């Protein structure tokens, strides 16, 4: 059964927004951040109106309610990605902090000068800069799985890089520019065979695909709520409990401790060991409801819907003279279409589309090295989610024709 998109759209109040009088928004920027269903918005609203309190150490009713809502959300998220236990789900601010947590608490404890970390050429800055920083500080080595012209990872080169016994492989499950869905299970298996720990940047995959961290056998898996119908301000680092237990804490403070003396402390057990200070409580509550929402719609159905749209979008965009698309064909990617239009800068494309309410992103999308690889400073990017329609693809295509006309 396919998605009832019209029904779903009713859950997203912002889709009725007019960005100028009479012009309703056509939101094609879900890869940057998704919109939120009213269920998620109302859950947080309700939390603040009925249950708000600080968690964990409170005995009173509100504190107990808040604690069980906060921890209940963690259980839901653990189930959503099929973690073995909710102890393996660490709340962070976003994917970026999740990756930095691994860079600070795992890598700084385990990696020495000369140790090799393998990344890919299609990484988001969030999976590059933490490793640049560690390279400067610690003298680790970095190498990269190349991206082919088609926009796929070159697995043959990966295999030869593995001969150098890397300590860590860190790669994105799905590219936020090319849309490429990488063969995560295979990359992880090969990495493990070579004795490496594997971190997956799941910022784009968890929102759009059914992800099973145990089936993938990922050691660490990072994602953000705001890209998957949840609020800003909260993300997750999933980690295998054996790994998380072997790590020193990251941030120090309230809640991450079992006991504090004037001159020493004992860290708390998982997952609290990595959550210092008052966490994003309302946001966790909203995140839990986002996961409920996505589960109720069904991740397979969402993926299938996006597949239909991207297939249509690539077909239609390809027809436009001067449009150049980046990334593989629809069968190998998620709902992301990055393109250039000959003679018009992506910023101008985006801004002119915006006059018709069409929201696409323009720039390097936090993947400058990938753009450099393709010899361009920027692209325009339209991205699709469960609430997008075929008609919105048509609006985009018409909009691009208008741009061409203006600059013609």
């Amino acid at each position: 059964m396919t998605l009832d998109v019209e029904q779903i759209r009713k859950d997203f109040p912002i889709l009725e927004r007019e960005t100028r009088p009479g012009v309703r928004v056509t939101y094609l920027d879900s890869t940057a951040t998704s919109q939120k269903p009213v269920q998620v918005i109302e859950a947080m609203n309700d939390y603040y109106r009925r249950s708000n309190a600080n968690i964990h150490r409170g005995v009173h009713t509100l504190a107990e309610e808040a604690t069980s809502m906060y921890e209940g959300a963690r259980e839901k998220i653990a189930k959503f990605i099929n973690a073995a236990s909710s102890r393996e789900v660490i709340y962070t601010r976003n994917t970026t902090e999740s990756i930095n947590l691994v860079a600070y608490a795992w890598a700084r404890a385990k990696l020495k000068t000369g140790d090799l970390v393998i990344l890919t050429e299609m990484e988001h800055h969030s999976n590059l800069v933490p490793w640049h920083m560690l390279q400067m500080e610690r003298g680790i080595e970095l190498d990269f799985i190349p991206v082919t012209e088609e926009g796929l990872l070159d697995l043959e080169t990966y295999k030869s890089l593995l001969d150098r016994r890397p300590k860590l492989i860190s790669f994105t499950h799905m590219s936020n520019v090319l849309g490429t869905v990488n063969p995560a299970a295979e990359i992880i298996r090969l990495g493990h065979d070579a004795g490496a720990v594997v971190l997956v940047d799941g910022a784009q995959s968890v929102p759009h695909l059914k992800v099973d961290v145990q089936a993938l056998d990922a050691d660490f898996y990072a994602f953000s709520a705001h890209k998957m119908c949840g609020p800003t301000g909260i993300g997750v680092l999933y980690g295998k409990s054996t790994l998380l237990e072997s790590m020193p804490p990251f941030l120090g403070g309230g809640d991450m401790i079992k006991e504090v003396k004037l001159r020493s402390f004992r860290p708390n057990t998982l997952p609290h060991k990595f959550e210092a200070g008052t966490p994003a409580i309302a946001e966790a509550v909203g995140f839990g409801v986002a996961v409920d929402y996505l589960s109720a719609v069904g991740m397979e159905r969402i993926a299938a819907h996006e597949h239909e749209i991207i297939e249509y979008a690539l077909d239609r965009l390809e027809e436009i003279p001067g449009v150049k698309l980046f990334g593989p064909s629809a069968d190998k990617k998620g709902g992301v279409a990055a393109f250039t239009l000959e003679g018009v800068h992506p910023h101008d494309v985006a801004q002119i589309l915006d006059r018709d309410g069409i929201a696409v992103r323009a720039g390097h999308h936090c993947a400058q090295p990938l753009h450099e690889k393709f010899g361009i400073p920027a692209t325009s990017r339209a991205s699709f989610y469960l609430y997008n329609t075929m008609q919105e693809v048509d609006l985009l295509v018409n909009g691009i024709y208008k741009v061409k006309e203006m600059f013609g």
Partner: protein
Amino acid sequence: MDDLYREIIIEHYKNPSHRGKLDPHDISFADNNPLCGDHIQIDLRVGTDGLITDARFDGHGCAISQASADLLIESIIGKPLEEVKKLNKESILEMLGIDLGPVRLKCALLSLKVLKAGVYGLGEASDDLVE
């Protein structure tokens, strides 16, 4: 469930029937809950047939931790040591006859944690013992 401080709790807190130490003893274990300072020590005597012949608890802390220790000790005297291993969260909540939030649950389960760590001969008491 409403009357969280059922008389039974206040009563066992104020007038515990099994407070004290056993010397000599066969098993002794102590632990505390650093969050609230509750402390419990439990001493056991075990017969050659594996039955618990006598038991005492000592310590200090909130009414729930102390009352549940007293109730727990009362319930195990005369029972086979093996049966202690089967006790869990529900056993304690049943004895107390109340529902507890996550923070107070820790108070209620401290004595069981101490008891099981002693019976299993562990070096440290872990929360997993009372899940």
